[in-house]
């Protein structure tokens, strides 16, 4: 049991999620079957995470593969939440495709699965810090998908949904970042040390803050593209912060090198 059964498990989850998402996309109003199937897929994904937690005897939040697993899970949750709350019938299809991409990466890159948990990660801050971050990433992922559409097609309801997703995503992103700084003080003696990952976290946070500060001035004008473009840039910075820095020379001196 463990990662070896993941391909089969993930296939079942993806079939359920895709069926639910397609039913939602084809239907005109909120569909009970679409919600139920997506809910089953989410429960399936949660079940795999729980099983992995038991097998590894530690929270599965350490390696890149494990964070991608949580991200896929939270993407399905965020997609269902957005569909149920704002009735965007195609959002679950987008979030399912995005979750599928991360699941496929996990299947084709099995070398990232490692059972050990290094001493620096053995902390009460570990689970809240990483899971809150992954949840915020998925909400901001949904906001990005909607923003991409909003750039070409204006829709006030969609703009409202983007703003709400952005506020929720930013709230959790901030909590993730701040719990990380409290943890860093206990682990390394400094709340903030401008390490490569921390610097990209500031860039990401700053871009989303620009977006929420831009909204009152540009949302009802012809300059609303600035708001949506900032959200897209924020998501790019977020990818850099999450795994992009592993490919930069600055990663060599980073203290956040346990998640490769």
């Amino acid at each position: 049991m463990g990662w070896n059964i993941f391909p089969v498990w993930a296939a079942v989850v993806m079939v359920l999620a895709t069926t639910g998402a397609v039913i939602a996309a084809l239907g005109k109003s909120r569909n009970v079957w679409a919600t139920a199937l997506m809910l089953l897929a989410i429960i399936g994904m949660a079940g795999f995470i729980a099983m992995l937690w038991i097998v590894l005897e530690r929270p599965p939040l350490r390696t890149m593969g494990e964070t991608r697993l949580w991200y896929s899970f939270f993407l399905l949750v965020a997609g269902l939440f957005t569909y149920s709350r704002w009735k965007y019938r195609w959002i679950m299809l987008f979030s399912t495709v995005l979750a599928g991409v991360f699941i496929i990466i996990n299947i084709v890159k099995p070398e990232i699965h490692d059972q050990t948990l290094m001493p620096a990660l053995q902390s009460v801050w570990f689970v809240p810090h990483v899971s809150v971050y992954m949840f915020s990433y998925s909400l901001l992922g949904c906001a990005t998908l909607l923003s991409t559409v909003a750039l070409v097609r204006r829709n006030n309801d969609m703009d409202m949904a983007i703003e709400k997703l952005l506020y929720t995503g930013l709230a959790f992103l901030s909590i993730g970042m701040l719990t990380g700084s409290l943890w860093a003080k206990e682990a390394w003696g400094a709340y903030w040390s401008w390490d490569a990952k921390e610097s990209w976290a500031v860039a990401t946070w700053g871009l989303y803050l620009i977006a929420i500060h831009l909204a009152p001035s540009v949302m009802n004008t012809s300059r609303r593209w600035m708001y949506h473009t900032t959200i897209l840039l924020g998501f790019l910075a977020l990818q850099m912060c999450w795994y992009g820095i592993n490919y930069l020379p600055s990663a060599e001196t980073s203290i956040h090198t346990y998640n490769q």
Partner: protein
Amino acid sequence: MAILASYKKSLTSGCILVGFATLSIVAQLCLGNFPLDLFCFPLNIFVLALWMMLITMMYRDRANNASSRFMLSREATWLSLAIMVALGVTLGLEREPSTTTWPVVLTIFFVLTHICFIVLRGWRNAKGIRWRFCLVHIGLLMALGAGFWGAPDRVQLRTAAHHYPSNEAYTMEGKQRFLPYTIELESFSIKQSENGAPTHYEAQIKVEDKVISLKVNHPYARTLSEKIYLVSFGTSPYGERYAVIEIVNEPWQWLAATGIIMLIAGAMLLFVQGPRKTVSGER
């Protein structure tokens, strides 16, 4: 007229950005890194008081002062966040980023100054979201301010604890310092995984005749401002195990912690209250 005013503000922001970049680059080229050590206690407190007094005076005179009005504008918020983003990207690309360069110091100074202006105006005027506004902005001011104004007072030393007492330690720049107490390794235990990677290690250290247990993520608070950390371990050429100890004295840490907790509370309110109505469809 509105378009003209908007272009005027954008032009002002652009001029300030260019002036700011030029000033920081010229200062860096002419003066080298910012002389952080010069501003340790009590000079940092004096400059901080002077800075706050100046901002309060400028805020009160905002009707006649164009600089104050700019610092209270949305353009100043966008500008300060944009240079913060630029700073994050630049430092994130550097292999060994230095945080005592003039561009870094001036960026944080500008951001802090702007937040100070915003707090002065907003703590009474932020209708409907006053708690959120105060927690987020005052929290950020305290957390960022403690890191900025308290940086000259922060002392970080490293030493290797052996099975004999020693008070010798080194700064991160490799300068020798002497602690007012001795450190001695009593015992060291380690657990390793099958591939040899350490999964758990712990050191019993004698500090001021008191034996303390140190683990990663579990520092020992010697005083209110000083903590002792176990950061690593090694083996001497004679095969003797030693523990790498870090001593961090940070008098401003409680101000930073209070600011961070306020920010977390503000972020929770951001989630609970959500956005203010900015999209026309909701009005």
